[in-house]
């Protein structure tokens, strides 16, 4: 498990392929990635700067775009910490204890991964819409959820729900309970044990989960689109703003905002790679979504 990234240098093993086979395979894999991954990324930046830096900058500081950027940051700033706390708590309960129904609980945590984002939004429309049971009650107390920031946050939390937990559970399971038991038997309190024993062990996995959670939170489209109401400058997140600009024939501006999101994705990947290089992949492994 832990030597996942330690590649043994099998340079000329008898079980190697010929150089030609290697080159062909690398070529096929490389072209596949070039067509399906690299080109789309390049297009974003080419289209964004098509009309020059000036127009690019204008598109980003335009008030509705700026508001969308702010909203996206706000939503991520609420959703990510919530899922962080949940992820740590769930991983603690699942990894450090044996109890019945654990496998089922893990499946439930995984559920948002395989649910269509559209459904994630729809459930909140059904729950909080004016036609629902809860909607009119909340309305009476002046609480707005649907078509307002709380709804967007909820949909985002739903979609990004498993990221931190899914990263931490296998990691903490691998580490077992020995360290914690030692600390406790030496008289440390539960909180101290977590703070000084567990946390340092899982910090990189935690960061890794937060990183992925954040990327998805800022980029979510389907779920947020269903609950947002698309009010410019108020409930439009960056991905929704991209769609609006795209539908206004404003390709350059759409790709300008998209390029910010693409840059965010690149930063995420860079940080992730850094985490993996510096700290054994065992810390940042698990199933990655």
């Amino acid at each position: 498990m832990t030597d996942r990234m330690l590649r043994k240098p099998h340079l000329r093993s008898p079980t190697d392929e010929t150089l030609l086979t290697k080159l062909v395979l690398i070529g096929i894999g490389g072209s596949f990635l070039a067509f399906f991954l690299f080109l789309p990324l390049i297009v974003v930046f080419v289209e964004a700067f098509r009309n020059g830096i000036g127009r690019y900058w204008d598109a980003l500081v335009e008030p509705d775009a700026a508001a969308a950027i702010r909203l996206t940051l706000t939503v991520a700033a609420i959703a990510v910490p919530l899922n962080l706390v949940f992820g740590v708590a769930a991983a603690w309960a699942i990894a450090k204890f044996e109890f019945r129904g654990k496998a089922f609980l893990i499946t439930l945590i995984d559920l948002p991964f395989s649910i269509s984002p559209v459904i994630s939004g729809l459930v909140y429309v059904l729950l909080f819409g004016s036609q629902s049971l809860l909607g009119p009650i909340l309305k009476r107390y002046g609480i707005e959820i649907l078509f307002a920031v709380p709804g967007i946050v909820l949909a985002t939390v739903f979609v990004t729900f498993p990221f931190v937990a899914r990263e931490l559970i296998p990691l903490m399971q691998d580490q077992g309970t020995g360290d914690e038991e030692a600390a406790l038997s030496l008289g440390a309190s539960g909180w101290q044990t977590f703070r000084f024993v567990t946390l340092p062990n899982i910090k990189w996995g935690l960061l890794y989960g937060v990183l992925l959670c954040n990327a998805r939170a800022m980029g979510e489209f389907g779920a947020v689109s269903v609950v947002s109401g698309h009010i410019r400058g108020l409930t439009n997140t960056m991905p929704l703003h991209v769609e609006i600009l795209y539908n206004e024939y404003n390709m350059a501006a759409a790709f300008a905002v998209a390029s910010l999101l693409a840059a965010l994705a690149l930063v995420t990947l860079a940080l992730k790679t850094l985490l993996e290089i510096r700290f054994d992949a065992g810390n940042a492994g698990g199933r990655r979504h």
Partner: protein
Amino acid sequence: MTRPARLFTLAAASLLATLLVAPQVMADTTLLNVSYDPTREFYKDFNAAFARHYKAETGETVTIQQSHGGSGKQARSVIDGLEADVVTLALESDIDAIAANGGKIKPDWRGRLPNNSAPYTSTIVFLVRKGNPKNIHDWGDLVKGDVQIVTPNPKTSGGARWNYLAAWAWASKEFKGDQAEIRAYIADLYRRAPVLDSGARGSTVTFAQRQIGDVLLAWENEAYLAGEEFGKDAFEIVVPSMSILAEPPVAVVDANVDAKGTRKVAEAYLQYLYSDEGQNLAAKHFYRPARREVVKPELLKALPDIKLVTIDDPIFGGWKKAQPEHFGDGGIFDQIYKPAR
């Protein structure tokens, strides 16, 4: 050991700072105008004009927020709780839907403003590619040869319903009211639609940007706008022999303005659509103003005279009858809509 902790604190602090510094400029009054697709450019101008006017008149600052989408979809959002102060939709029946489902708008809304609450009207024209390669001049040409048509989904888009009704009106005259022939024509029309977007704007993007189809059935103003956006030499507008008088109505959302205390400014906002400035702006964005007399003649020149049938014509019998008959669940559209497979 404390490094990660410091890192977290730093990250959290910087995030918090971003949020606090981010200026949340709140104006004295904020209105939300929930509108349909092709009005984006018009309301951008009009909102600025109204804010200026209102400030001069009352000294209050008002900010207007916009939401755009297919008309039916927008109505659904308002029914579901989107806090619109005013709705400026494509169809009477969409506002009726808000009145009927949850009663946020009082049923008498149509009588509160002049011209059946429609400050501007429009109609449906064709947008074809430069040089009109498929030789499309009237509704009959749409079902000739391999012509492909781009139009939005009548279930979600108001403009799409006007498209459908305009075609129906022409067919009704052409086939002298023979229901079977009219239906066959409409069915043929929609068989030629490779894409049904949810709003008029999506269809324009499909036609103009994605280069799909030979002809776009479009709002008159949307057709002109596409011409401006993509260059005059990309497309031509074809005006058919007859079309439909589309009346996009506006209304104050009673329940919302009363809850938010914005009734006064919301009503002033809609009233201002009928003012000289509002009417001129509408014409500038290729809407047909309700008060032609106050509009500069050169703005009216772009809007040609077409023989227009209204929704109240006996072949339709008004929205209350036409909506369920044509677009309701299991209505005529559902019966005949079998797209190419």
